[in-house]
């Protein structure tokens, strides 16, 4: 009796769910229609490019995946927003913070577009799918996303050759470490953080072939509890210097408390740790973004994959701490000049930590190949992702 009842419930559930899909096979056309309508409307509104006043106020909407005040990566784009406010004429910017996970960004961006924004700036690869769809729907709106790989005619990706800055701080770390064991707190093992880790390790190896870089992945970009745990673990394992590639200030605070030198990330972190910071890898998008605003104003915006570098002013180091001797500063400055003159970070021959040749003699690894890295340099000690995945 009971069994039969349960059976009936299961059958009913299956039938119901079949019904559910059945009744809306037609729905996608509706949404498509809607989308096209919206796109057409947008086109109509913007259909007179000649008539656009070049002195008009350009509205720019920013969407952040985290809370700006607690997230160093978000701060780099917030700094760009403030730069635009200060340095561009006739501009109005808006920001919405704490839009995590991606899906919500679509709503915020649509609201921006409704409010008359001509340029939308996203700051997370989670936004990619939604921005790609919106870019199709609103061909006259300029979209910019910080990180990602797909572009459209009206969607640009901005990233940077962050390995250049990492290399410089790697040299600094290789000189400053007393025990030849450097900690590296980082986020999620996908190519961009891996590229930065390898850039750092290359810098270390260039001045101190004995030193090893111990990497720890926290599995998120900003989780103060885990970040602090990573820092404490590395210090307990005997590292006397920590390089940060995380967005919270937790690692810096742990280092300050325990008297361990560290290298900050994204922005100058002395606010949280005034005495232990040697320097920080700082990233600046403002001037590049101001150019994009002008392109939008003139109607010449063209979506592309933009890899900024040290020559764009996108990559710089924060003021050096008092501990850093002048000869080390000079050495780092010298290398910085070399990068400005076109030197590359990843120059062959490069082997990975399993002994496989990755970059042959006489070749360099740049651009797309560098942004596809999934292996580690020989002096990287990795506890999680140590098997190359390709």
């Amino acid at each position, binding site marked *: 009796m009971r069994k039969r009842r349960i059976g009936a419930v299961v059958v009913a559930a299956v039938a119901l769910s079949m019904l559910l*899909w059945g009744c*809306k*096979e037609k729905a996608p056309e*509706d949404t498509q229609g809607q989308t096209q309508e919206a796109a057409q409307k947008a086109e109509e509104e913007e259909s007179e490019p000649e008539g656009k006043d070049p002195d008009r106020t350009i509205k720019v909407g920013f969407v952040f995946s985290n*809370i700006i005040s607690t997230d160093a990566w978000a701060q780099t784009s917030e700094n760009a927003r403030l730069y635009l406010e200060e340095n561009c004429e006739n501009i109005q910017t808006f920001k919405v913070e704490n839009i995590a*996970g991606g*899906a919500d960004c679509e*709503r915020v961006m649509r*609201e921006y577009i409704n409010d008359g924004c001509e340029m939308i700036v996203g700051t997370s690869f989670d936004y990619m799918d939604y921005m790609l769809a919106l870019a199709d729907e609103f061909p006259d709106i300029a979209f910019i996303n910080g990180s990602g790989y797909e572009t459209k005619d009206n969607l640009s990706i901005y990233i940077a050759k962050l390995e250049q800055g990492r290399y410089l701080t790697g040299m600094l770390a290789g000189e400053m470490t007393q025990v030849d064991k450097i900690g590296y707190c980082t986020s999620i093992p*996908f190519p961009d953080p891996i590229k930065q880790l390898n850039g750092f390790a290359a810098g270390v190896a260039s001045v101190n072939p004995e030193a090893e870089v111990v990497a720890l992945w926290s599995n998120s970009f900003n989780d103060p509890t885990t970040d602090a745990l990573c820092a404490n673990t590395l210090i307990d394992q005997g590292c006397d210097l920590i390089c940060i590639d995380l967005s919270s200030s937790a690692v810096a605070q742990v280092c300050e408390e325990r008297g361990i030198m560290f290298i900050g990330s994204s922005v100058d972190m002395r606010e949280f740790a005034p005495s232990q910071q040697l320097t920080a890898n700082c990233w600046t998008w403002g001037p590049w973004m101001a150019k994009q605003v002008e392109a939008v104003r003139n109607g010449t915006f063209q979506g592309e994959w933009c890899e900024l570098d040290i020559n764009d002013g996108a990559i710089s180091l924060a003021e050096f701490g008092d501990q850093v001797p002048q000869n080390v500063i000079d050495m780092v400055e010298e290398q910085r000049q070399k990068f400005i003159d076109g030197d590359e970070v990843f120059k062959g021959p490069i082997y990975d930590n399993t002994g496989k040749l990755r970059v042959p003699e006489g070749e360099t690894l740049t651009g797309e190949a560098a942004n596809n890295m999934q292996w580690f340099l020989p002096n990287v000690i990795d506890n999680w992702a140590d098997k190359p995945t390709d």
Partner: protein
Amino acid sequence: MMDKERRGRGSLRLIRRMDIPGWLRLAVPAASIAGGFLFSAIFLLGAGESPLEVYGVMLQGAFGSSYGLGETVVKMIPLMLVSVGVSFAFKMQIWNAGGEGQLHIGAAAATFIILNLKGYDRKTTLTAAFLAAFFCAGLYGLIPAVMKVKWNVNELITCLMLNYVGTLLISWLIQGPWKDPAGFAFPRTAKFPRAGEMPAFFGTRIHAGVVMGLLAALLLWFILTRTRWGFEIQLIGANPKVAEYAGIPVKRYILAVMFVSAGIAGIAGMSEVCGITHRLQANFAAQVGPSGMTIAYLAQCHPLGAVLVSFLFGALLVGGNSIQKLGLPVSTVQMIQGSILFFVAAGTMFMNYQIQWKGGSRE
């Protein structure tokens, strides 16, 4: 002694209501929400903002257009499914705090089906994904249930632990075996084929998850109030010892209820990946698990109440994003959201208790 002291002065008494009248169930939350707005207004005024403008934009964002209303519903869907699911177990005093983990397992199961079941039409694919999500999450919910039944392990603890296991499992899948081969190694799966996408309604992003949530709520409400099963579940919730003496198979109920409860939470995961993100990635349902428990509590484990409170939550999230554009920092937004929830939570006291002024006695 106390009585002697009190005599002649009069006092406030809280008396538990035997019956909560229906109008009170709506009037108290409505008054609480208004109270939350009034309370926040003090701080907004202090910060030099006009509360009317802020609330206007908030309501406009959440309800002011068909799109905004649609987004409120979209945010409500996973919250509704998780809260309806866990409140079913809460009803029996089984603390299923594992909604987060079950949601992730459901999402993973659905993703596995969709990425591997190629060449079928939408009806078959989604039905398979739906069933996989329900059964896998249900089985996942059985782990704490079995431990509870066999060894009397506190299910609250095991459920909370399994949340980590569930989310970390997803983390591993998207960084390892399920990583999109064409995705430059970004940690997420490939985009679902069209057969794996739940279509959207009315030019918004509302998807079939809303129907699933409402049906689940109605079904559970029906079971709880109109069937012998429901009666026995409520009896176990009131006093498991008595229920056992009465010959009710308490252990079997624990297993069955946890299975259904977890299964429904799993559907929340399936509906998110199939309806909204169209792929599995980290943070696809940030905060849904914990919020779902809060909602179940605020709704006093009433399935239909959970639907209403989820709607309120959705509106708070959507409206909260909108007011940021006024230049309000996100902390102010969170304060408004928090004080409204605080008032709603505190308001439940007025629902459960009658306040009486006991005048000074002159016997």
